[in-house]
């Protein structure tokens, strides 16, 4: 239950000037919301941020559009390097997203307004795959749950859980409340998740990390956990991305540590997990149960679609997929394989020939948005397969379809067969 005592918020002269309108009415409007956020989070002061990532560019109705257009009209501009999350449109492939013309026009105006305020037209939920990512220990204001958990956990940067409106106001003012995960003592683990009974061969599949994320989200809620007993050799950024995204979907995870792997755990060394920390053992059975919970169709069912790239497909994921596809066996004509990625990663994947290989065997590429957020898959799709725990979490409700969580190999074998194939040996 919340403490209702009031805490004094101290603003410096520059904060007061912004609030008073000395930097224009747009900055004053943004500052009013930052100050309100500080009061809600009981911060005693505001701090500078080095970058921002904005999630408000996905269209959720007129109010979001009115808000950013008002800020632009009042002359506000971002004052720190700012990236943009996915929009409701694929701006490079018009017609791919089947929104009605009125909503499509509003979504387009929304993207234009965020570019007008000075943010980069990155349109990706994986800003950590772009050059110039935040350094460990720096304070940033990132929105989008998977980006937040990646920035905190894998990069060691510090962000609270910012959402719509707070993200752009932080970018305009360059200030955020000193609260939550911006405070060092809130970043130490309060729970150990012992993974030593999960074999390396199971963790050698990205989809196992999605299932692990589902388990982690359920076990830790909004706590900070440290995962122990994982061989650093089986960990890569794509796997930490998959785990964090699923943990943030199924729970409220904004920061996790992996002993011997993530920066703050490496720095803490033997001091983490500290003695007496509550400890939970995670098992391969729990991973399979999570996989089955994220699966609503059966082995052998007709498969209509496969979705990769939630969060956005990285260049290394393109490389892993290209390796599986190099025999150039085509997909079953009844099954469409979709890959969601950013325009920057797509450009790199084209330079290396990965994108061309994917398209040659029948895959379709989506940029700037994602296949679970807006109508892209054919209306006739009944069952889809994915390596992504986040996609599997949201797709059944968002799209009214059945979903199967599978490894990359299972997904490709199934796409080629046009029906769901499970290789239980990958999960044992």
């Amino acid at each position, binding site marked *: 239950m919340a403490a209702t005592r009031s805490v004094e918020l101290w603003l410096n002269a520059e904060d007061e000037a912004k609030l008073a309108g000395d930097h224009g009415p747009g900055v004053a409007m943004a500052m009013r*919301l930052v100050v*309100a956020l500080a009061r809600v989070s009981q911060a005693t002061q505001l701090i500078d941020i080095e970058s921002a990532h904005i999630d408000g560019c996905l269209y959720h*109705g007129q109010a979001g559009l*009115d*808000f950013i257009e008002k800020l632009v009209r009042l002359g506000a501009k971002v004052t720190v390097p700012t990236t943009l999350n996915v929009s409701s449109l694929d701006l490079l492939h018009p017609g791919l997203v089947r929104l009605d013309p009125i909503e499509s026009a509003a979504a387009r105006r929304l993207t234009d307004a965020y570019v007008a305020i000075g943010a980069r037209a990155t349109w990706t939920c994986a800003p950590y795959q772009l050059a110039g990512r935040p350094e460990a220990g720096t304070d940033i204001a990132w929105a989008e749950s998977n980006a937040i958990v990646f920035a905190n956990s894998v990069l060691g940067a510090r962000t609270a859980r910012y*959402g719509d*409106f707070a993200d752009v106001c932080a970018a305009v003012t360059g200030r955020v409340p000193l609260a939550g995960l911006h405070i060092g003592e809130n970043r130490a683990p309060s729970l150990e998740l012992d993974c030593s009974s999960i074999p390396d061969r199971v963790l050698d599949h990205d989809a196992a990390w999605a299932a692990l994320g589902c388990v982690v989200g359920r076990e830790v809620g909004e706590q900070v956990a440290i995962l122990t007993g994982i061989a650093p050799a089986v960990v890569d950024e794509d796997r930490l991305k998959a785990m964090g995204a699923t943990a943030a979907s199924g729970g409220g995870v904004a920061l996790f540590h992996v002993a011997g792997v993530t920066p703050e755990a490496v720095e803490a060394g033997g001091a983490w997990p500290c003695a007496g920390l509550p400890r939970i053992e995670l098992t391969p059975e729990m991973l399979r149960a999570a996989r089955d919970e994220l699966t609503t169709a059966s082995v052998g069912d007709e498969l209509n679609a496969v979705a990769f790239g939630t969060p956005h497909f990285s260049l290394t994921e393109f490389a892993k997929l290209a390796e599986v596809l190099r025999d150039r066996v085509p997909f079953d004509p009844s099954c469409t394989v979709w890959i969601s990625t950013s325009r920057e990663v797509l450009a790199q994947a084209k330079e290396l020939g990965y994108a061309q290989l994917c398209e040659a065997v029948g895959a379709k590429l989506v940029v700037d948005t994602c296949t679970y957020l807006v109508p892209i898959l054919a209306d006739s799709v009944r069952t889809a397969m994915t390596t992504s725990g986040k996609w599997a979490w949201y797709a059944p409700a968002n799209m009214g379809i059945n979903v199967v969580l599978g490894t990359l190999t299972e997904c490709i074998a199934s796409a080629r067969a046009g029906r769901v194939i499970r290789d239980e040996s990958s999960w044992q």
Partner: protein
Amino acid sequence: MSQAGSERSVSAVSLCLGVGFGEILWLDDPLSFWGGTELDTGVITDVHHPQQGVSLVGRVVVMGASRGSSSSSSVLAEQIRAAVAPAAILLGSRDAIVTLGALAAAEIYGTRLPILLLNESGMAGLPRSGSVTVRAAEDGASICWNLQRDTLTPHSM
């Protein structure tokens, strides 16, 4: 809880200023506005929520714990614009996502949805049903109701 004749009231902290009046609605489970309520109607659509199908429109909604997507700020702001929002929201936790949705709508439209923060005893003092009046001002906030309206479900305090 304070009492004067048949008037009862509970004091709270103002997170978003405003005045509201409506039937109290206790949420049995946490609710995310994004993905949990219909944008155009303010009706609970979350299939996992025990109150699926219940409308939040014009109600004084009691949210003991918070949950959900950060896109909920946009959804609440849009529901305030479209006049399908609650009359007031009474929070048991410092929920920045909900508060920012109301604050943003106030900035754009001047529409004020009062959001109040209650401590444990404040929550316990609230009626389970009936109409309440909510006032959130700079110098404090309160929820008031008339005892007669609450006689159907007497509350032990």
